[in-house]
């Protein structure tokens, strides 16, 4: 009865092998590496780049362990840091002929030292969390209200264009909060307008008002779409900005409905990171008002005319700009510094199709007038540049040139590029962890697990003898499985995660204690050893299941409601409960069966002293028969 069928042993063996295989990469440590990724949205990283890097390395006479393309970047691993630095220089020189305007980001990074055949099996080490590795962490809140307001502004513009195209006369279009308000003089026009608007802008709910006007509000569904799109665009923009920082492995993730997490390993300089990431800027393109009234207002001789606003032009003093937004930063695909036909520095803008169409109309109607590109940071606007429109701008490519230096052109391009956030964001949580503290945390975490494990195993072996050895082996197997599954999931290991590993091991031994105590109890009751093993395992199982279910309830609650570091704890905790069920029941039974199962005339078990009450002679500790 204490024998497993062959398939069960095979299953255990396979589990053991897989566990060992996927735990293995964590043991190799990390080697210096160089990571090359794209610095520009338009430049794609592909296999060809790998060949270029290999060639560059060969030319410089630098020996790499390997060069690998992994989907979004090319990584090359090196034996030591000297080679790594040499390689970085060589690759940088080969890929970025103009260091001021790099096409690729060449960053130093760490890669697992594990051999390639392991990597080929997708056996990668766990990611280390920021608290173990050092770096900065930001949690950013996206201002969704602003995103909706912006959308409403765009809708006002859309409605105006549509009504004009169809020659429907209205008595004014404006935005009130997040609703579009259109006034009409007669009912006929209103009916025509309603038909048109309902047809063309179905995402807006249009309602006729008693005063003869029409109001339009985004339907709840459309609002969600707007918010999701805003979040997505912000994440993309953040990616671009972080790329400018040259961080090797940034994490930029959505959290909840309106938050973004940014983690930058290795970066300690929060000031600079924040400067680039936290730039809560949005872009708008509007026309400059050059009427006599506004010129008077500029001189301070009158109020700012209706429908215009006063802004400061960078370095050129105040300027009066119309309120109506012609284009927003969404339409801007790229902005690069360049040179015009006279070889003076310029900024080259690329617009998307919709933006190009609007720009074409706008420029045709406004030749000789000035347009202004405004950058809004935290609700405050500033005119980045206000060029004169010389000719009709078709094709979505705009060249802004004028009195500027190369540096100014490149700065303006950077600002414009970074400015295309769909909604402003604010940093609501910030964490920095020094690299030495991270290393200390790893060491402390590992020391806790190691010493705790050793103490528990030693106690088990002394108290339960051979059964204790089996229990300790099962505990080791549990640790193996846990780390393997965490590696397989590519989970991020944090200090609370390590604490959870320690705790799981401490709790997992509970199952084996239960089993061993039951076996002893059966022996005490006078059952034969083989029978005792069988009954012990069988009867203990119900209790083991119970205890794991209650622990799992707490674990799942933490998983669902926890955030940040607690989530890491909960993942390990829940996973550990599952692996411990398998290892402490199935695996330890397998060991016991393997050892005792074939002995037909088993007299005693090595499970420590089985003490019997009622004055009977205590049967002394027995070694294996």
């Amino acid at each position, binding site marked *: 009865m204490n024998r497993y069928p062959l398939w069960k042993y095979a299953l255990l063996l396979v589990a053991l092998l897989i566990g060992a295989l996927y735990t293995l990469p964590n043991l190799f440590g*990390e*080697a*210096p590496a160089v990571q090359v990724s794209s610095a520009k949205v338009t430049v794609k990283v592909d296999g060809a780049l790998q060949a270029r890097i290999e060639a560059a390395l060969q030319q410089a006479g630098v020996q790499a362990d390997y060069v690998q393309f992994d989907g979004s970047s090319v990584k090359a691993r090196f034996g030591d*840091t000297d080679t*790594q630095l040499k390689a970085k220089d060589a690759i940088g020189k080969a890929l970025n002929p103009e260091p001021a305007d790099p096409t690729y980001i060449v*960053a130093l*990074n*760490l890669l697992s030292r594990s051999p390639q055949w392991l990597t080929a099996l997708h056996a990668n080490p766990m990611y280390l969390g920021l*608290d173990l590795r050092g770096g900065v962490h930001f949690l950013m*809140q996206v201002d969704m209200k602003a995103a909706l307001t912006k959308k409403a502004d765009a809708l006002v513009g859309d409605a105006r264009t549509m009504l004009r195209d169809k020659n429907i006369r209205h008595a004014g279009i404006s935005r009130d909060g997040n609703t579009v308000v259109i006034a009409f003089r007669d009912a006929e026009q209103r009916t025509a307008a309603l038909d048109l608007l309902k047809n063309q802008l179905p995402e807006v709910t249009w309602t006729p008002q008693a005063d003869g006007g029409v109001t339009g509000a985004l339907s709840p569904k459309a609002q969600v779409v707007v918010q999701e799109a805003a979040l997505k665009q912000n994440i993309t923009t953040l990616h671009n900005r972080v790329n400018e920082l040259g961080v090797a492995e940034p994490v930029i993730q959505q959290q909840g409905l309106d938050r973004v997490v940014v983690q930058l*390993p*290795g*970066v300690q300089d*929060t*000031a*600079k990171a*924040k400067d680039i990431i936290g730039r809560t800027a949005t872009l708008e393109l509007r026309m400059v008002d050059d009427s006599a009234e506004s010129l008077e207002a500029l001189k301070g001789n009158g109020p700012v005319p209706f429908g215009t606003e006063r802004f400061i032009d960078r370095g050129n003093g105040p300027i009066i700009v119309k309120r109506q937004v012609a284009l927003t930063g969404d339409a801007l695909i790229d902005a690069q510094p360049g040179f015009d036909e006279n070889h003076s520095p310029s900024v080259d803008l690329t617009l998307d199709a919709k933006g190009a169409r609007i720009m074409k109309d706008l420029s045709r109607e406004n030749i000789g007038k000035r347009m202004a590109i405004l950058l809004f940071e935290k609700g405050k606007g500033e005119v980045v540049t206000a060029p004169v429109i010389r000719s009709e701008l078709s094709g979505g490519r705009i060249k802004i040139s004028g009195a500027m230096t190369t540096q100014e052109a490149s700065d303006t391009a950077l600002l414009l590029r970074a400015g295309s956030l769909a909604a402003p964001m604010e*940093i609501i*949580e*910030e*964490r*920095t962890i*020094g690299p030495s503290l991270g290393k*200390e*945390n790893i060491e*402390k975490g590992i020391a*806790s697990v190691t010493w705790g494990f050793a*103490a*528990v195993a030693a*106690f088990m072996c002394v*108290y339960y003898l051979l059964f204790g050895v089996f229990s300790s082996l099962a505990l080791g197997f549990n640790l193996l499985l846990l780390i393997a599954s965490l590696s397989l999931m590519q989970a991020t290991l944090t*200090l609370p995660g390590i*604490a959870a590993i*320690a705790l799981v*091991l*401490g709790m997992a031994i*509970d199952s084996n*204690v*239960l089993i061993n*105590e039951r076996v*002893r109890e059966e022996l005490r009751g006078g059952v034969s050893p083989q029978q005792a093993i069988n009954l012990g395992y069988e009867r203990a199982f*119900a*209790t083991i299941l*119970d*205890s*794991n*279910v*209650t622990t*799992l*309830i707490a674990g799942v*609650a*933490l998983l669902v*409601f*926890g955030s940040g570091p*607690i989530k890491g*704890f*909960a993942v390990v905790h829940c996973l550990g409960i599952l692996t411990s069920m398998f290892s402490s029941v199935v695996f330890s039974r397998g060991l016991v069966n393997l050892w005792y199962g074939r002995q037909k005339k088993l007299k005693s078990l090595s499970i420590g*002293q*089985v003490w019997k*009450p009622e004055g009977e002679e205590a049967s002394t500790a027995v070694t294996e028969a």
Partner: protein
Amino acid sequence: MELFRIKRDLPLMKHALVFNAISFITFAAAVFFLVTRGLHFSIEFTGGTVIEVAYPQSADIEKTRHVVEKMGYGEVQVQNFGSSRDVMIRLPVRAGEKQTEVVGKVFGELCKADAGTVSEHQEVTAQGEQISKQVCKKPDGAEPVKLSRSEVVGPAVGAELALDAAKALGVTVLGIMIYLAIRFEWKFAVAGIIANLHDVVIILGFFAFFQWEFSLAVLAAILAVLGYSVNESVVIFDRVREAFRKFRKMNTHEVIDHAITSTMSRTIITHGSTQLMVVSMLLFGGPTLHYFAVALTIGILFGIYSSVFVAAAIAMWLGVKREDLVKTAISRDDPNDPNSGAVV
């Protein structure tokens, strides 16, 4: 080796009143301290700023405090963290202050106080990872103070976390209760949850009394230990059920005594081994894991006590009867039952 050689069932339930009185007093004390002193929440819950700096020599706390207090951030806490060289500075949230700039400013002032200047510094670690950070350097190149960690939490995030924490606790308690009620009977569910919630309150009471920092990690420890020690009650209730079936002559008192006595060895050994792990965390885990391990220790110790003595006693007082537990299983397990089939 066998540690527990208990000849007769210990007459524990005779002293149920004493146990419950002890529990009640500790519980009342815990509530008292929770109310009068309150918990010392970490900035994860309250929002605020924590800055950890390391000095090359033993830190002069008074001087550091003086420097930071002069900056006018309101109530500032400056204390050693881990070792005498590490200093933790805690600043509250202030309206109108740009929170994310506080860290840079404070570090700048601390640096200035030690006659250094802050500059940007890039380096490549021995492993080959590029690191850029703000460093404080004296003219002679020495680093008088290092920024090891900083954390800034906005007040909104804190409020949300506190809410989520309460939800997690609620769901855990409810889940365990439902499970116990399905598995046993409502009286056991109530008894089990009261016993273990009283642990939670006592852990919180300790944190309130000593004004230890109550962080998210501590909360996780409490929830984990709640799930863990409830199973102790489960084991005992299991035995109670079994004893009701096996020993038909015993009254409820004796049955519970028997159940507790027979599981005593297992209870102490399992909790002991878990505690071994926790002690290892206390010794080697460093300051970050310190309160996590402390919460676990208190939880485990009181977990044994409450699930063994308190839960069973409450169940007894709630009037657990044989009929509550045995009715469904009787036909299957009792060979004396005339309705049972032949036993092989």
